[in-house]
């Protein structure tokens, strides 16, 4: 038989435990802090099929470079502004790298070849002048391949 002093202690622990479980119960049933949107069934069906057709592709705007680049080369990546790790511009090169891997993109303008990805031709011309590159193959407005001036 357990000592009689153990019973109140056990009872106290048991009451505390039941309170904690009830608290857990209540938390589960509470409304979330942020409302949950309903998932888009069309996207889910497309994903489940595995083909992903119709779902916007990440960084598809960088696909235009694909036919002209090779993983044997490293390319500088020229944008409207110089690379800054904490600026919003970094998203562009990160996304481009994700799309064009295994080709390496260098945010520093030190490579012989460069990919130019500016918002328009005027910006591209300005940045080419600043960085010492010359456009060799224009691909779209402000986009193209460039080579460092010797």
């Amino acid at each position: 038989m357990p000592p009689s002093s153990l019973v109140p202690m056990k009872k106290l622990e048991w009451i505390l435990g039941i309170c904690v479980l009830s608290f857990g119960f209540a938390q589960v049933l509470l409304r979330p802090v942020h409302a949950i949107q309903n998932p888009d069934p069309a996207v889910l069906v497309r994903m489940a099929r595995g083909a992903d057709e119709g779902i916007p592709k990440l960084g598809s705007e960088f696909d235009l470079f694909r036919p002209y680049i090779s993983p044997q080369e490293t390319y500088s990546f020229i944008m409207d502004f110089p690379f800054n790790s904490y600026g919003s511009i970094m998203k562009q090169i990160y996304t481009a790298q994700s799309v064009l891997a295994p080709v390496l993109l260098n945010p520093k303008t030190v490579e012989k070849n460069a990919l130019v990805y500016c918002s328009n031709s005027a910006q591209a011309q300005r940045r080419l002048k600043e960085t010492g590159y010359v456009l060799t193959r224009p691909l779209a407005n402000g986009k193209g391949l460039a080579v460092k001036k010797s």
Partner: protein
Amino acid sequence: MSAFAPLLISYLIGFLLMHLGVSHLPLKHKPILSFAVAGPLGFGIISLGIFGGYALHAPNGMLLLFTALILLIAWLLQKTFFSAAAENPFSFFSFMRPPLFLARDQRPFFILRLLCVIVFLFSLGIYLKSFLSITCLAPNGDWDARLFWNVKAKFYLRQPEVWSLMFSNVISWSHPDYPLLVPGTVAWGWNWAGHETLLWPALAAMVFSLSIVALVIWHLSVTRNFETGLIAGSFLLSIEFFQTWSASQYADIPQAFFFLAAALFLMHALKIKLSRLFLLAGVMTGFAAWTKNEGLFFVAWLWLTALLYRTKTWLASASERRELIFLLLGLLPALTAICLLKGIYAPHGDYLGSKRTLHDYAHLLFQSPENTRIIFAALKSYTFQTAEWRYLWHLGAAAIGVNLVRALHRKCWDETWIPVLLSVLILAGYVLVIHVTPHPVSWQIKASLTRLLMHTVPLVLIFAFEVLAPENLRPPAATLRQN
């Protein structure tokens, strides 16, 4: 279908290995444990295999992996079904006996259990809705997933002969020295699909998340009762940060899984003193380090904890020394891969090989009281003052208080302290890392603190429920009378 074959093979490998690991061990609810660990264990082994295959001969890396996996599965099947010593895997499922013939006095508890199951299914439904909603909004995963982790998987797959370009310092912003468990897992599924399908990374992320929930249920079912396990599992599923980070496809939920699994195996290993559990604790710790750099800290913390629990005897007996050898053996495969990665492929990282001296680190640590103040203020506000955690940290703090009173009363510091001890050590490590980060401290806090806290959430949760929840739902007077 293309996503289910890689999932099935990962589960098969993980399940057979777990079956071998825990068969004949005096552990309750082994099937729940095996299913909880099987998926992530399979992913871990396969990601190590991919890295090994590519390191040996990149153009045929996947072929080498498949050969190794076929041999491994054949060996595991032979061991499971044809070895006289092995436990019949089908006896595993005997626990599923329907509770039709409960004794009369147990019937109210069956209704309670049913209620817990309904609540669990409700919270699982909410979790799935949230997961799918976030996945629909960002099918490529969140920032780190699509720009770091999945990019590494693309290096594995697109042109295997130049896979090592992923370690190039030219793309230092993509953290070339980051471990490769998540990229390996993603590459594994994509290789089966034949293209970079959006389904697989999301599915793998869900496997890690639900495995944490299953592990929480298993542990609390063993140490407390099944109902407590279900309520704690529901609680975890309802934490909004858990929902968000699991759908983000980041490596933080896998990291949290391996932290939890290693801690639980260590707890049970110290309790029942069986070498195989130390081996499993070592394997899980190794995979934690193979998931994120933070896992390397965890290796040190887990060893420190294991040694602390052996300070009474100072490893006097041969069996205790053997336990630690098994812990080390479990760590070895992943540690070897990490040494190869950081020593040969990517020697320059944010911290290791960053050319900063010890003096620089000491200066950052001790000469910046303002940063220290900011970090601790952020810790307080990101834990106790953030509603999305659903008061988990308050519950954890209450559990520390109760367990402290209990320990002083009973003069016994048992294994229940392990999760909280590890959590404190993990968070202390992160505080140090945030001090010496190459980024601005406030930026680092905003970018990572919630995710870092997430690593310890399952540990705090099981500690809180293990300490505070009753061992038996029956009132104690009745239990004692029965005894």
